């Protein structure tokens, strides 16, 4: 990963963390998980898979450190989601809609994992507040955001204007 790409990704993660903890942390209706989405969409780029996993882990760790949940909880979840994203990204190549659905399903998996691990580590009251609505709203919001942002994000990170262009 070259310096400029690293800078772009670092900036993207930072903006995602800030927007997630300020704007989306306060809204009660629109509740995407922007940081998780960045980890998922990075799997579509040409960034090396180990780097994608490391970025997902670090961004999850930052969210853990900024919140009150166990340190490592989101890091593990985001890394797992990123790994599954890397292994399944071929299925997302078909078009904008499939990318959105793929990102939504991966987000759903991430939310379920978060609730599951949260329950195992006694954090469910913290991360599982409004658990049922979270399992619906967060994947839906990420699906919509992925449909809107995925091609632009991949082109920006890869600096390739031809990336993810569909007829």
């Amino acid at each position, binding site marked *: 990963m070259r310096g400029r790409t690293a800078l772009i990704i670092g900036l993207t993660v930072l903006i995602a963390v800030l927007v997630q*903890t300020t704007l989306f942390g*306060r809204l009660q209706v629109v509740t995407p998980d922007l940081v998780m989405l960045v980890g998922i969409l990075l799997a579509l780029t040409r960034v090396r898979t180990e780097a994608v996993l490391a970025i997902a882990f670090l961004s999850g760790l930052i969210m853990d450190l900024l919140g009150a949940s166990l340190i*490592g909880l989101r890091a593990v979840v985001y890394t797992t989601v990123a790994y599954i994203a890397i292994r399944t990204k071929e299925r997302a190549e078909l078009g904008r809609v499939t990318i959105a659905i793929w990102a939504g399903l991966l987000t759903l998996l991430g939310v379920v994992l978060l609730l599951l691990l949260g329950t195992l580590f006694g954090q469910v009251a913290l991360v*599982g507040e409004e658990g049922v609505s979270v399992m619906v709203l967060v994947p839906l919001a990420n699906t919509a955001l992925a449909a809107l942002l995925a091609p632009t994000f991949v082109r920006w990170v890869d600096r390739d204007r031809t990336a993810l262009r569909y007829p």
Partner: protein
Amino acid sequence: MLNTKPSDRALPTFITLLVIGVLLMTFDVRLAGGGVVGVLRSGTQEIVSPLQRVAAFVVTPVANALDSLSNVASLREQNAALSAELAEAEAALVSVQDDLAKLALLEQIYDLEADGGELGQTVANVIGAVDAALIIDKGIRDGVVAGQPVIDTNGYVVGTVKSASTGSATILPITASREGLTVLVGSQTGTLVSRPFSSELALEMDLDVFDAREPVLAGDRILTSSASTDYPAGLPVGEVVQDASPESTSLSTTVRPFVDAESLRFVVVLSWPPDPVTAATDDTVPEDTTGTTFGEDATTTTSTTTPEGDG
């Protein structure tokens, strides 16, 4: 074009990161948020909080506008309900003023003086949230330290400070805390615990009284107990939702907290215990920790408190 071939090192990297993550979780559990983990947390907040302040300054109008749009449908009903509440509160205020006048007269007759104990209050803006935890714009330089109790501008219990950096702090609401809160319901002491998967519409907690002598009724107020090590005694927490009678010597019921942490824009951090050494024997409670804050910026204030008995 996509790089569709995952590297051979993806799986080892994934497993390594998973192991590191689980180890971090184990350390956090074992250290109970202190030690290296606490330093990491406050260090990260130290770096990110200035950026969060800037981001909050930009996004707060957007968040408020979107919140208002989402609430516009129920605005008329809310206005009617608030008008009714205001009328009730004004009536209650008049009766309280009468009581205060009587108290002042009696104090004058018997030559009594107020206790004079002071409890510092730091009013803070909520600038963000992660999961159920709130992030505020006041930190160590404003006198906010981990473990301090937090109330809202009406004096209702919100939670405690989980961690603090120089310019920000993270608040853990009681509805998200793993630890039970020792409370008073009537003359009985119980433990209030958070309920998993509680929703905003039915924000509820579980109350267990293990030495129950009498039933509790719906509408009974729950107050912090002097047995609590995290809060001064006598702070209102919530009210009982369902009647419950003792079964053998225990009793369980549902409590609705007065505060919905998600909707808070301002909170008040109490400098409590004022003196940890004397706190063990001191049941000091703020007589009036209320005072609705208006305006964009919160300020640090100190208010006088008076002692109150347990509950």
